[in-house]
């Protein structure tokens, strides 16, 4: 049985932990709202961009001179994995999930005889993957200390990717990130970005519905595709940011609740110990009085 003093200190320490976790939960909740708004605001551009890209790619499809961003290099040898994680921990399994998914994917690709290169976004992913896939890491981007992600950050990453593609260093690029499903659920998503997956939904004929192009299709595509890639990266970053705050909120909510339970249990123990002490003292007094 721990002493009363020891119990009192434990209770005080758990209480202060609970205060911290509950404050972190509040902070995460407000950041989550902001991240969601940002993700919402980015949607119109992405939608219109998709529409233009699908119209254009339908009209150059099958042409041997179609840009590499659209059809890839024609090889399937070197894979680039872009693992998007957070810079901070304490968000449940958020970062670990991405790390694990990336590791499994890398192992699987290597088992198939492909070469894997990894670009990490966020400090946690870099730290995780450095442990056993260090030789595949080529670069790591972090946004530590930044209040919000802006489009330029995404553009920087996508420029890195396009430069590598143009230099023939990679053939396929895949984004691994947490997609924001709801506050309590994030889904690890693997999204292939190079070569661009065929547009879903509408058929090619319908979407290219008689557009004129100025200048020609290929010149526009050459400018449009890097931008579209940057948008895809930007969206992944925003989804991941929203997911991170959601995950942290849930994790901190759980931590606050656990701390509450713990305080309850410790207080009960403390009271029991106190009662036992009093009873013991009473017995001593009574038996002392009887002895006289």
């Amino acid at each position, binding site marked *: 049985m721990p002493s009363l003093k020891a119990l009192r200190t434990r209770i005080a320490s758990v209480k202060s932990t609970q205060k911290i976790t509950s404050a972190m939960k509040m902070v995460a909740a407000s950041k989550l709202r902001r991240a969601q708004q940002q993700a919402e*605001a980015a949607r*119109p551009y992405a939608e219109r961009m998709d529409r233009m890209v699908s119209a254009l790619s339908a009209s150059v499809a099958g042409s041997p001179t179609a840009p590499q961003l659209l059809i890839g290099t024609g090889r399937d040898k070197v894979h680039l994995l872009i693992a998007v994680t957070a810079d901070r921990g304490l968000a449940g399994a958020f970062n670990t999930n991405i790390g694990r998914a990336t590791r499994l994917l890398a192992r699987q690709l290597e088992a198939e005889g492909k070469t894997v290169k990894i670009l990490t976004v966020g400090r946690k992913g870099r730290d995780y993957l450095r442990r056993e896939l260090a030789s595949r890491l080529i670069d790591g981007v972090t946004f530590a200390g930044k209040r919000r992600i802006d489009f330029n950050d995404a553009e920087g990453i996508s420029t890195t990717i396009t430069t590598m593609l143009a230099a023939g260093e990679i053939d396929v690029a895949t984004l691994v990130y947490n997609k924001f499903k709801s506050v309590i659920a994030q889904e690890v998503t693997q999204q292939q970005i190079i070569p661009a997956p065929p547009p879903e939904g509408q058929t090619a004929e319908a979407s290219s*519905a008689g557009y*004129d*192009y100025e*200048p020609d299709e290929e010149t526009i595509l050459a*400018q449009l595709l890097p931008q579209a890639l940057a948008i895809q990266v*930007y969206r992944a970053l925003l989804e991941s940011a929203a997911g991170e705050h959601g995950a942290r909120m849930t994790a901190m909510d759980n931590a606050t609740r656990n701390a509450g339970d713990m305080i309850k249990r410790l207080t009960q123990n403390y009271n029991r110990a106190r009662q036992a002490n009093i009873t013991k003292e009473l017995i001593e007094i009574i038996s002392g009085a009887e002895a006289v």
Partner: protein
Amino acid sequence: MAVSLEIVSPEKLLLSRSVDMVVIPAAEGDMGVLKGHSPMIVTLRGGTIALYEGDRITDKLFVSGGFAEVTTERCTVLATEVLPVAEVSRAAADKRLSDAEAAYTIAAKQGTAAEDAALVSLQSARAMVEAASAA
């Protein structure tokens, strides 16, 4: 009879309203868009977008480049940077122009692709200075 104009940047929807005519700075010359324009996809150079109501210009916006999708009903401008002409600062424009000129001198030695890219940003910077002096 109006076209609905939408101007979006990657970060948000900047403007969405219907105008009688809009003039956009397409890569190969300014282009006026009225209702019923034939569907087009164009790239934009740096320049000003002018919004018309009747034959009066109601708003002028500076864009640094981007894309536009025109259909018979609407005109969608995808731009990375959009500013009302009145808010374009002369100092910022001058700085960008001198940066672009410096970048161009370097790029000119590196080959055609780099030179072309630098030329585009140089042109966009010149358009910004022009917009700033017009305001």
